[in-house]
């Protein structure tokens, strides 16, 4: 027996999502397969975008501006920033858009709305894995030694994902009401790539600005990720790293809270 009232809070929220796992599976499969349908190079687009970004950043920051790369190949430094940045940017963008993109389902079918952001997470992690394999290939190519610290890289990747999903859930909630965020987020991400240490190393930021710079959690995430790959060369800025992980967890928690509080009204507001 099921009772529908104004105030019925489903206690089994996560169980309900688990029960609809077949839907999650097919939505994820749809998101993975439709992206590059009717394109010539297909799934290669996943790698073409980061590779082109790497080439341009290496040219600008490495060859022209001649920024310091602590003896590492500049292309590798940039790509080690691009891989976590693209994970963050794709997840944030896609999550914030996930309700609008699935609005016909949101308004016509009863299903846990969190399925759509979760699906974007899976897609983002698949893209990340391809980029990461390429990055490992670069390490072999440039003979950057792989050290035990590499086991720490999932911490920073998970942080990037949690931060992106958390912010994305808040943005998706706002987006259902104010479409401004659909315009704003791509712009923020466009600027964010320069504000974050993607094209350069964190060390380049003057010491007195270090704390301020680290307020951007992506700075800590990229710094930590590079450190796990090249611990001999990259110095970790510990306060920034810890701050980034804590903020990411807090953002994910906050994002889920906000999303759930608004979830019942999505079908009316979207």
């Amino acid at each position, binding site marked *: *027996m*099921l*009772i*529908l*009232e*104004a105030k*019925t809070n489903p206690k089994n929220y996560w169980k309900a999502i688990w029960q*609809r796992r*077949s*839907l999650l*599976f*097919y*939505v994820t*499969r*749809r998101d993975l*397969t*439709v992206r590059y*349908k*009717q394109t010539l190079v297909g799934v290669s687009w996943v790698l073409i975008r980061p590779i082109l970004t790497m080439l341009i950043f290496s040219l600008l920051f490495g060859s022209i501006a001649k920024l310091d790369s602590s003896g590492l190949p500049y292309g590798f430094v940039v790509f080690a920033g691009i891989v976590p940045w693209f994970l963050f940017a794709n997840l944030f963008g896609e999550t914030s858009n996930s309700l609008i993109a*699935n609005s*016909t*389902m949101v*308004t*016509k*079918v*009863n*299903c846990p709305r969190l399925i759509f952001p979760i699906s974007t997470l899976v897609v983002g992690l698949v893209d990340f894995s391809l980029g990461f394999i390429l990055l490992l290939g670069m390490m072999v190519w440039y003979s950057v030694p792989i050290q035990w610290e590499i086991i720490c890289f999932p911490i920073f990747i998970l942080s990037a994902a949690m931060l992106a999903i958390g912010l994305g859930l808040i943005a998706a909630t706002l987006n259902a009401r*104010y*479409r*401004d965020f659909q315009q704003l987020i791509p712009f923020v991400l466009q600027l964010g790539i320069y504000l974050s240490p993607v094209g350069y190393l964190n060390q380049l930021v003057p010491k007195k600005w270090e704390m301020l710079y680290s307020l951007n959690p992506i700075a800590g995430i990229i710094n930590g990720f590079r450190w796990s790959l090249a611990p001999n060369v990259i110095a970790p800025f510990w306060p920034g790293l810890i701050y980034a992980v804590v903020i990411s967890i807090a953002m994910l928690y906050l994002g889920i809270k906000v999303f759930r509080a608004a979830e*019942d*009204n999505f*079908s*009316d507001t979207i």
Partner: protein
Amino acid sequence: MSQIAIRVENLSKLYVIKHGSGAGSLKELAEHYRRLITRKFIPNFKQGQKDPFEVTTEEFWALRDVSFEIPKGDKIGIMGLNGAGKSTLLKIISQITKPTEGRIVIHGRISSLLEMGSGFHGELSGRENIFLNGALLGMGRTEIIRKFDEIVAFSEIEQFIDTPLKRYSSGMQARLGFSVAAHLEPDILLLDEVLAVGDVPFAKKCLIKMEAISNSGATVIFVNHGIDAIKQFCKHAIVLEKGRLILDTHDVDEAIRLYLGEST
């Protein structure tokens, strides 16, 4: 064991329509607050002028105090003009939106089809769409695999099953959508305007299928503007007008007369 499939008790749904900043963009909302603050600190600032960004709200009761019961195995038709509250009622029963007041008690697994082929994606093949749509309507993976051949056979589009959906005609898409929904095994099946598409033979086939679903013991709730289908299929009808229930009867012809009388 209860003999009631759905009991609707004093159900109301309020929509608050916002005019001004609430409906628009962030810019308008920000402008509204800027003016509020300005007025607070400068008491005589543009007094008496109407704030174009002011939020005004208008209340709209899509449903007002609606009560009725649907016994198990019933075939009920819901009628009413556009804006009578049919879709709101179905959305509440389908758990897409919540009631403002009152409650609904549901006994049994409910499947609702408010739109033909919800979640269909043009780039996916018919086959992939069957799985996605089936999962969306609440079927498990194994259940879909088990019924897959039946679904395809019913839709009569075997030949195009691996063609992207965007190459289908709208009639073909509707066939596929109905076929998936018709192979759910719910205790309660809720259908909104589903026979509005597709050709006459297929609509006939759908009615026969619904009859079979009903004969297997399921309760069928049916919304349709086409009087013929309701006349032929339903044994029970309710008529809504401006959010209120104005008739609940087993004399379907009476309900149709009232509905037609309303429209003229």
